[in-house]
């Protein structure tokens, strides 16, 4: 089982801070599941820019949407965010 955590505005859409998923191969597959579960608003929020971490490491520094998800992995998903 892997844990998926949502942050910032995504929480308003999902209504929850985190969910568990099972048997999901990679980030691409996970996103498809989330898009169908949480609908257009979620997709729109994610499409322009986002930050997806697998165990704290940005998928852009790994294999992008092809990054594999293993059992026990923690995935953190942020909408576009910044500050300073």
């Amino acid at each position: 089982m892997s844990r998926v955590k949502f942050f910032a505005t995504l929480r308003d859409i999902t209504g929850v801070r985190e969910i568990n998923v099972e048997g999901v191969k990679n980030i691409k597959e996970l996103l498809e599941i989330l898009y169908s579960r949480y609908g257009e608003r979620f997709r729109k929020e994610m499409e322009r820019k986002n930050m997806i971490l697998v165990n704290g490491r940005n998928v852009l520094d790994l294999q992008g949407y092809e990054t594999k998800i293993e059992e026990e992995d923690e995935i953190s998903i942020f909408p576009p965010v910044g500050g300073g």
Partner: protein
Amino acid sequence: MENYFYSLDILYHARGEFMYGYWGKILRVNLSTGKISIEEFEEEFVKKWLGTRGFAIHYLLKEMDPKIDAFSEENKLIFSTGALTGTVAPTGGRYMVITKSPLTGFIAMANSGGFFGAELKMAGWDMIIVEGKSEKPVYLRIEDEKVELRDATHVWGKRVSETEKILRKEFGDKHVQIASIGPAGENLVRFSAIMNNGHRAAARGGVGAVMGSKKLKAIVVRGHKRIEVIDRKKFISVMREKTEILKNDPVAGQGLPAYGTAILVNIINQNGLYPTMNFRYGQFKYAEEQSGEAMSKKYLKRNKPCYACPIGCGRVNEMDTIGETEGPEYESTWALGANLGINDLASIIEANHMCDDFGLDTISTGGTLATAMELYDRGFLKQEDLGDAPPFRWGNTEVLHYYIPRIARREGFGSILAEGGYRLAEKYGCLDCFMGVKKQELPAYDPRGAEGHGLGYATDNRGGDHIKAYLISPEILGYPFKMDPHDISDEKVKMLILFQDLTAVIDAAGMCVFTTFGLGGDDYRDLLNAAFGYNFTTEEWLKVGERIWNAERLFNLKAGLNPEKDDTLPKRLTDEPMPEGPNKGHVVRLKEMLPRYYALRGWNPDGTIPEEKIKELGLEEYL
């Protein structure tokens, strides 16, 4: 009562050639003699230095020996606006305070938003150079051409909110803008801020303490002039275009307005570089409880933008205990929270409010308290050194409430803390307990999780600091594009140099660095060119940034900077691998990056600036 020392009542002489963006006017205020005079500058000066930090470094290099003591009469305190300050350019309301820092012994250049900078420019002044020292407390009152030094005995000792209230009433105009110091600055706390609009701070480097050493309590200003640009129609159309970009940007247009900078708490924590307990760890168990999400839900009342800002990251929070307050920003939330192992958000907000009101830099306040906690934990600092005062135990919220006012008033152990973390660590025999660079406390990113940012800390002209080259943008947030935080190639080093130079341009333009979530080099070029009617390329503006950076470096070298000893990081970050989390096992490979940084800057291998570079940048006159 004699409350009128010197007044200047002048009429503007019609200028032969009108200058756009600026008035070409500098107010020079000598507090030793009470003399106020006016100086002018020409357009060439703008082309060379652009504004704020750029203008100021010229005067500091020309007029004072960088070796002098920061609290001496010879130190100058410069308030400077930027090229677009007071115009309708997005976020064009900023000013900077530049002086020799009593904390680092090097250059201090602190930037603040709010409304003070724009008002100063609208009063007809581009810059104020304060020199000398007054014998008794004074404040500077500016109403367009009318400039006076007035007695400030009645507000000396007062906190920032009270000071603003009294001086505003005295002026009799609610639109007046005030930059003032609190008790911290008066008492020469080495990390004191200059505050405006209650909660906006020019904080880092202890600029407030220099103001205090000169017995200048405040500058009160009201202006009624409109700043002219060369082609108003064109300027407004460029302004609209850039504002649109910002509004449509997911961060500048949505993320920052919705959650403020504290949105970073969860992001940086999840990425494993949220410094916890004086940088021992990179993740804080209770980060969620003090996140931007939690703060917005529990306390947010409304947003509060600075002058001409379409982003509006500022937050007005409301609490039962203190009523309305502003902030804390991400940095302050961390400095007064996770870095001390403190998780109680209410205490953090109260502590931030206290720091603002007493006029303290929140980052250095937190960093100094964290140093004390480390010293205490490791037995260097003992309870008998503190007497009845609260123990410096990790997570002890009492530390915030008890010590912050005592630091500002220099009471009891607070007086030792008022010297900053470096001097505290030195006194108790553990310099490694201090997490800072060039004696200034580090901000809220553990560079073992963003190594380019670590090189930024080590080479920053004002010491431990994040905002003069925010490499967190590419390394973590993916702006303008994503770079691996552990890549230390030449590309990364070049990116840092670009960020340092570009930030100098943005500062000198009088704009907010948060516009970089949306705008790029060409956008700043467009705005500046439209205001002045120049056709500079982006590279030419960046050259101005490079000139500023090098001139500040020159100031530091003259002040005694030893690159080998000073362009460095605390041992914990270079020698102790991160113990856990996503960056487990990583250190900052500073030694591998620094020589390449010097080379790519065109400097000598020992970190000094070679003659050719000095010539290339037109800095010969400052040698």
